[in-house]
């Protein structure tokens, strides 16, 4: 099957990343955009862009009919879903294939099996992969099941991902509220309100295995990533290799990752997530059947372009290398730049990007989905982009990323930029002592701090110069909701 034109069913930094990968392989890329994303960076990165509907994701980026119509009108012969939105929708994957298009991802059946967390657990358990103790839950049996597992427990969405529909429950009193909230969130995010319980491990690390499989029987792993720095069950900082793995443990973990992938006949790029406890025991968490946000750090250390591999695999090509050819060198670390205020419970922020400066230099990579003059819409995830760095060893990679973050400036929505730098500076992080509760333990009362006096001097000097006259900005526009926002939403 030949692929010449790829429709990218996504937005933001990942859509930019995929468009570039298409161009590098001589393929055309077609972007899609909702009403609030007209002219957004991801539409500029592609060769053409098709409007797919109004701002709410349900009517645009989650609208299967609109996406297929866009693919038809643009003459696309393949669809890359990116991550999030419909990336793990077996129904969308099947609809793409029924429309005669190539789905750039694993088989719809593998997506369906791994997307149903209970089916996934059963499937990988049969393959001998260890599981976190858990239980299927309906409203009636939740309390007894939770008592059997022992508190604390985790409520998770059966169709879940990205921390949505997930709640930690410390005691039986919290259980009904957590179940209700998780069901609502799951229903809203995945149109599937089913939830289940899992035993909450104490201070585990989140370690995941990147796999890559072609349609000719080759399945390899590209090593692991440690992603323990999380808030609201969403990753903030990721690195590879994991500082806690011995070569023996790495061999066991990657073998388990391959076994889980093999259990569903996995092709394309995928990630098998595990929790690793302090005693070196690991448990299958879930498999993400798509390209992962944090894939750049694996690309840094292996030199393998994961998105390019997805394109080649979807076109029916053989991977062209084996496990023995995969070599990891050095250390890579990524920070996710979010429009959110870490000092206010990570509350998301939105609005126009007034000014933007992105870092550069040896060993620095920026995967960005924003531009000065653009807007961060309130409708979607607050991820603005990712900044990653490579170094010959962990300390130099961290230092490089710190430099890069210091050279970054985003004026407009509040961001977590200062927070990220403080995480990298933290002594426990420097020692590699990370676990999924790291931020809650060390950063619960974080405040931005900094050199307020110098900043105030800069502000006063700027105010002493006349502003650019209003007529230099073009025709006066009606105030956007952003401009009428309360003062405290800006900056930070």
């Amino acid at each position, binding site marked *: 099957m030949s692929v010449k034109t790829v429709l990218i069913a996504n937005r933001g930094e990942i859509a930019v990343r995929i468009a570039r990968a298409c161009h590098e392989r001589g393929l055309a890329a077609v972007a899609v955009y909702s009403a609030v994303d007209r002219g957004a960076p991801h539409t500029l990165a592609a060769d053409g862009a098709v409007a797919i509907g109004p701002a709410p994701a349900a009517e645009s980026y989650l609208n299967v009919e609109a996406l297929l119509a866009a693919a038809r009108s643009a003459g696309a012969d393949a669809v890359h879903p990116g991550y999030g939105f419909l990336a793990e929708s077996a129904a969308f994957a099947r609809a793409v294939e029924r429309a005669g298009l190539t789905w750039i991802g694993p088989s719809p059946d593998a997506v369906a099996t791994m997307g149903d967390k209970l089916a996934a657990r059963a499937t990988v358990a049969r393959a001998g992969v260890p599981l976190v103790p858990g239980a299927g839950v309906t409203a009636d049996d939740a309390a007894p099941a939770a008592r059997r597992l022992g508190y604390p427990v985790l409520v998770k969405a059966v169709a879940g991902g990205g921390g949505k529909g997930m709640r930690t429950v410390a005691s039986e009193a919290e259980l009904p509220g957590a179940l209700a909230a998780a069901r609502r969130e799951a229903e*809203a995010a995945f149109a599937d309100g089913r939830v289940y319980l899992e035993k909450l491990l104490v201070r585990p690390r989140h370690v995941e295995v990147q796999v890559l499989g072609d349609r000719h029987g080759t399945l390899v792993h590209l090593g692991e990533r440690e992603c323990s720095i999380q808030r609201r069950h969403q990753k903030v900082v990721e690195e590879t290799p994991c500082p806690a793995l011995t070569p023996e443990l790495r061999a066991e973990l990657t073998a388990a990752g391959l076994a889980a992938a093999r259990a569903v006949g996995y092709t394309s790029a995928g990630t098998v997530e595990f929790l690793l406890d302090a005693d070196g025991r690991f448990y299958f968490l879930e498999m993400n059947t798509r390209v992962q946000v944090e894939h750049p750090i694996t690309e840094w250390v292996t030199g393998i372009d994961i998105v390019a591999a997805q394109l080649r695999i979807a076109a029916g090509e053989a991977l062209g290398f084996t496990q023995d050819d995969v070599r990891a060198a050095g250390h890579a670390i990524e920070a996710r730049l979010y429009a959110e205020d870490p000092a206010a419970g990570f*509350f998301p922020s939105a609005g126009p990007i007034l000014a933007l400066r992105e870092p550069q230099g040896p060993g620095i990579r920026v995967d960005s989905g924003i531009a000065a003059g653009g807007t961060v819409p309130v409708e979607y995830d607050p991820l603005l982009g990712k900044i990653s760095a490579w170094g010959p060893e962990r300390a130099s990679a961290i230092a490089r990323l710190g430099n890069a973050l210091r050279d970054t400036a985003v004026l407009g929505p509040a961001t977590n930029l200062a927070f990220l730098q403080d995480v990298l500076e933290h002594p426990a992080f420097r020692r590699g002592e990370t676990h999924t509760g790291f931020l809650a333990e060390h950063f619960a009362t974080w405040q931005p701090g900094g050199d307020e006096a110098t900043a*105030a001097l800069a502000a006063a000097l700027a105010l002493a110069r006349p502003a650019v006259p209003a007529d230099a900005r073009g025709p006066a526009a009606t105030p956007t909701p952003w401009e009428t926002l309360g*003062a405290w939403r800006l900056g930070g």
Partner: protein
Amino acid sequence: METRLRLGSRTLTVGLVAEGDGWAATVDGAAHRVARLAAGPCTSAAGATVEDLWLEVDGRPCRALVARIRDRVLVALAGRVYAFETGEEARGTHGAAGSGTVSAPMPGKVVSVLVAIGDTVEVGQPLVVLEAMKMETTLAAEVAGRVTAVRAVAAGTVAAGDLLVEITPAAAGS
């Protein structure tokens, strides 16, 4: 020249007196020596005036990216952003100790309303669950007191700044 800048709940007072090739400056009374090394061009984006400032503060060179929009000045300096407010608000002290007025911080959907008029609430007590940017967030009481108004309606949509719940603070010591 004196400029008052509000940063969070505090107000910083900056004094600038031209002297030699720069300024003799004060920030809240502390003296600094400031020189502008280069004046970057002023540009505008999304209604803001933006400039790159190369400064020397107490002999140390630094570069600040500054955006001005209405009564706000955002300064990016060494990887941190400082959101100052000028104008009338900068002279007040509101917001310092928490407010009984709970409004929507951004557009979203009300998931559930957890209090009713007449309820007595404690600091930190959840009032309203809001969904914004795909995440549920719980808005909690910043003051203890009695709920005197509930405007939030479950499943309703709200705009930024919409009043959700009003709490009349309990008298101190009660």
